[in-house]
């Protein structure tokens, strides 16, 4: 009889523990909206990657409703207006919600994937959580999208001096790029993510900048034609950021999402590598070491002036300078420490 009782008790315990570990979520769920900018919409790559995160969010008690936005500006505005609890934007768009992370796309600040990896890993640490919060917003994850390159229809434009007077398709909301284009004496032709490729391909601009992931889908090779080239120099490291309204999510949510995002880095880098490999080898224009040094110095001046104007965050620039100096400690900037 006692044995029977014990067996009964054991089986009850087994059922209870099985249901506790079965992945069924018993607690109250929070319904929250996540507005995802994807230029292709609900069938696009960014939207699908974010969709894969929904089961994980559910385990943390959040039922995320994903809404696709093909216009990044509207996604940012809806988020600001409180229509979305969380949003996915590019790093530059994200600047108005967090100046620190929004400065990670600063011109010339991250020379290669290697440094980008170090920055991202550094910011995933729980210790960095403070930097991720700004006012009512928290950056709950950053995903890398690869280097931004300069595409020119005429490869004789191979120095900064040659850019003078040339028309450059420039994202009109990006103050830093506008400053940069004017700084080198080129002329700004306002463009958006939806129309810059058309302008480049039909010749209304001489030069455009974009990450490699845009090269094949938007057929930038048509604009490059027979005479064009891609300057092999990382103007910036593009990234996507998930921003959340702090008061709409439970304590610790931001860190959980950041940890989750970190598990997707390799996947993201693979996509970037595949996209870079699609650019025909003959298009790459390799600057000399001397030119590279000159550009690095010029971009540093632009960054410092943009920092002084309040566009870039000083702490972010300092972190990125430290990362660059870890890889190349002999750089003159490492002794000068102006950033």
């Amino acid at each position, binding site marked *: 009889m006692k044995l029977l009782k014990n067996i009964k008790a054991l089986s009850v315990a087994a059922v209870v523990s099985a249901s506790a570990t079965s992945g069924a979520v018993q607690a109250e769920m929070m319904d929250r909206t996540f507005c995802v900018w994807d230029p292709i919409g609900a069938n696009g790559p960014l939207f699908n990657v974010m969709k894969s995160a929904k089961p994980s969010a*559910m385990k943390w008690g959040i039922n995320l409703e994903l809404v696709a936005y093909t216009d990044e500006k509207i996604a940012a505005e809806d988020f600001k207006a409180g229509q979305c609890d969380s949003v996915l934007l590019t790093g530059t768009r994200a600047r108005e919600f967090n100046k620190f992370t929004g400065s990670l796309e600063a011109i010339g600040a991250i020379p290669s994937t290697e440094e980008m990896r170090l920055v991202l890993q550094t910011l995933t640490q729980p210790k960095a959580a403070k930097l991720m919060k700004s006012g009512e917003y928290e950056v709950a994850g950053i995903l890398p999208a690869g280097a931004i390159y300069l595409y020119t229809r005429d490869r004789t434009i191979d120095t900064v001096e040659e850019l003078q007077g040339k028309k450059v398709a420039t994202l009109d909301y990006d103050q830093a790029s506008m400053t940069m284009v004017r700084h080198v004496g080129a002329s700004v032709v306002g463009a958006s993510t939806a129309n810059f490729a058309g302008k480049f391909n039909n010749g209304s601009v001489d030069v455009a900048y974009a990450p490699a992931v845009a090269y094949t889908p938007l057929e930038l090779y048509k604009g490059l034609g027979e005479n064009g080239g891609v300057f092999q120099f990382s103007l910036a490291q593009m990234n996507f950021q998930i921003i959340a309204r702090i008061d709409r999510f439970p304590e610790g949510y931001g860190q959980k999402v950041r940890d989750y995002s970190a598990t997707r880095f390799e996947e993201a880098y693979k996509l970037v590598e595949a996209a870079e490999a699609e650019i025909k080898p003959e298009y790459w224009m390799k600057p000399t070491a001397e030119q590279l040094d000159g550009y690095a110095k010029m971009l540093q001046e632009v960054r410092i002036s943009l920092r002084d104007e309040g566009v870039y965050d000083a702490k972010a620039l300092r972190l990125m300078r430290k990362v660059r100096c870890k890889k190349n400690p002999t750089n003159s900037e490492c002794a000068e420490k102006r950033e």
Partner: protein
Amino acid sequence: MKNFGVIKSLLKNSLLLAAVSIPLVGCQTFKDKVVYAPAGDVMQNLAKEHTVPYMLGTEDLAVSCAMSEAMSPLLMAFGRVTSNPDQLGVMMGLSAGACEEQRAWDNELRYLRAMRDLRPDEAEDALITQKRHLINASKRQFAAYNHLVNYYGEPGGECPDLDDEFDQFIWIAGMLAGLQALNNEIQSTSSIGVPKNIASKVERGTSCLNDDQWWGVPMAMKAAVWAMLPGALPQGENAWERLETAQAKGEEARVRLPNVMYAMAAFTNGKDDLVKDIIRRHADQVKKHPADPEYILIDTTATLQLQALSDRLWTENTGHRTPLGGLGTFWDDKKDSNVEVMELDDLL
């Protein structure tokens, strides 16, 4: 002298070996040329002249899909002995890809149900399974697209000679396969090497066809790319108006494939009400006007694709797929308030 003997015996042996192996090799070539190659040509011609038209006139998509999965190795193996059956390869890959797409849909629905029931582990498993099927679907469809490229050249450049109807049909099928391969690769969030410019190339490749002859499908494909690819819309064009016109052409011809492109473009752009309207109208048209007997399979495919979209919406909102006979209806449809009833008050 001793060495000479060894060399002589070696020579003797190798001559013997050569004498024996030549007829063997010759025998294989003989079989390939005289037995298999004509059989392959017969199979290819049979498939082209009878199997494909026969299948297009049937409505059982599952049978056509199972046939493609089972017969592909047999038919494609004839490429080893006679000309590569690229045109058939387009059809086989497109159709076999559809089998994997359906398996992926089932797992998408399982994912949605699990999310509704707050079972994230199950949801995650369903999502992983869905992605595996999407990768397979994408591979098969990409292979179909490559057969198209092998036979006709890459779409998007100069138009190939598309003399007869069969060529034109294969051209449409191959481009559809390309678009689906790209779409499924994106959905799978993996990279299997489908070139991302297929959409732009197909957009141009549709101009090689007569839109009226092909039920509005070429324009529907073009306009769907305009609606989905940033910056693709030419100045002065309206993708949605073009899709609506294509819808009408498909209905007129009773081959309502343009509706699938219209609905996909609407879904991608978050226009759920438009998706519902397209499904409602499609279901109504199918009920009232049976498919063109020559292309029943295409019309049925369109219905099944729209049913998959409908199932997704139904499952998200109710936990189950579209009820039987319920295609074209939705869970939140307003009930007809003018239903006639008898006065009961004096009986109560």
